């Protein structure tokens, strides 16, 4: 990305650097969680930018950086069909089964 000045006017801006998604492990024992994104020319720079942008106050102990374009996401319009089986299969939940109170530790 270059930004040359075109005459006396505003500088011309070229193509954006790729977008990277940032994930932070807030402390040991927890999973990395998505916190936002940064633009950077490569992964190493993305890591540096993520550190400056998202961890100025002890927010984490580890960073993951993933190119946004590499993320495969489900389609919100398909969410009904995609996640419906979970709701219709109540027998997957322990409360589905009636066990007398007299039976302990189950």
């Amino acid at each position, binding site marked *: 990305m*270059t930004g040359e000045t075109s005459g006396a006017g505003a*500088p011309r*801006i070229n193509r954006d650097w790729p977008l990277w998604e940032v994930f932070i492990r807030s402390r040991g024992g927890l999973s990395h969680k998505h916190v936002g994104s940064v633009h950077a020319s*490569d992964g190493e720079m993305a890591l540096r930018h993520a550190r400056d942008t998202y961890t100025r106050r002890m927010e984490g102990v580890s960073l993951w950086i993933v190119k946004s374009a590499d993320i495969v996401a489900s389609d919100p319009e398909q969410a009904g069909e995609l996640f419906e089986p979970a709701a219709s299969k109540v027998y997957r939940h322990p409360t589905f089964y009636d066990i007398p109170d007299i039976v302990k530790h189950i």
Partner: protein
Amino acid sequence: MYTTEFDKSAKPLAAVPNESPELLNAFEARVAADEFIEPKDWMPEAYRKTLVRQISQHAHSEIVGMLPEGNWLTRAPSLRRKAVALAKVQDEAGHGLYLYCAAETLGTSREEMTEALLAGKAKYSTIFNYPTLTWADMGAIGWLVDGAAIMNQVPLQRTSYGPYARAMVRVCKEESFHQRQGFEIMMALANGTPEQKAMAQDALDRWWWPSLMMFGPPDDNSPNTAQSMRWRIKRDTNDDLRQKFVDITVPQAKYLGLTVPDPDLRWNEERGAYDFGVVDWDEFYAVVRGEGPVAKERLKARRDAWSEGAWVREAASVYEAKHSQQQAA
């Protein structure tokens, strides 16, 4: 402030005629039920455009907002104050970045937004087009300007667009330090020599009214408020927030032993709130039009920063290209 439409001529965006009424109704119902809208969800074009405008204005405000304080970084009166000021300015840069990313999820690019700002086409908060003349202005900005920003941003943590709301949660977490360090500067000056106290009073005199303007035009002159409130893009009206700000800030000024520069300011027992004078809206609209005292300097500083950083961006791109070539080979 940031939820304010700075462009007086901007009309609420009309619905696009070919949008399906079923989708529109389902969207309105989700928003009314306080659900969050996420980037890939269907949304009316007017909602998308309003958000892009609002979030990008908010982002630009953070970025330009670094300049008035940047002006004092090298002249902070102690190492402690300098470290604090640096941390605060760095936070503002971070806030701008969170917000640009949130706007990008709506389909605009960083490039377009940067270009609009540098070309002078984008709006940002009017407050940053006032000069920072003395060190006391660092105190007044933290106390009043960041105070007004907090007032505005706290309700935005529940704004209907998910990425914007999440950015606001991060911003609000960090903003409280900004206000407190500003008030601490004001306390030090107010308890200092008579000259220092006069300096604090002078800063309050100059920043009070521009701070009230940050909440935007009065409700009866704010054409976008109704639609934005219905869509939960905005959660409170300009006048409500302004009143709230006056009510909490006046006692703070009293604590400092400083006088709020408003002869009409008095406590209204019946309303349980302060009555206050009329804001000079002509001045506000002049600043919105780009006639603020240092509007030109602000834009020039942004353009210079962009141009002077060009070689760094170029070098990084070339470095990346070279390394990916080597890896491919």
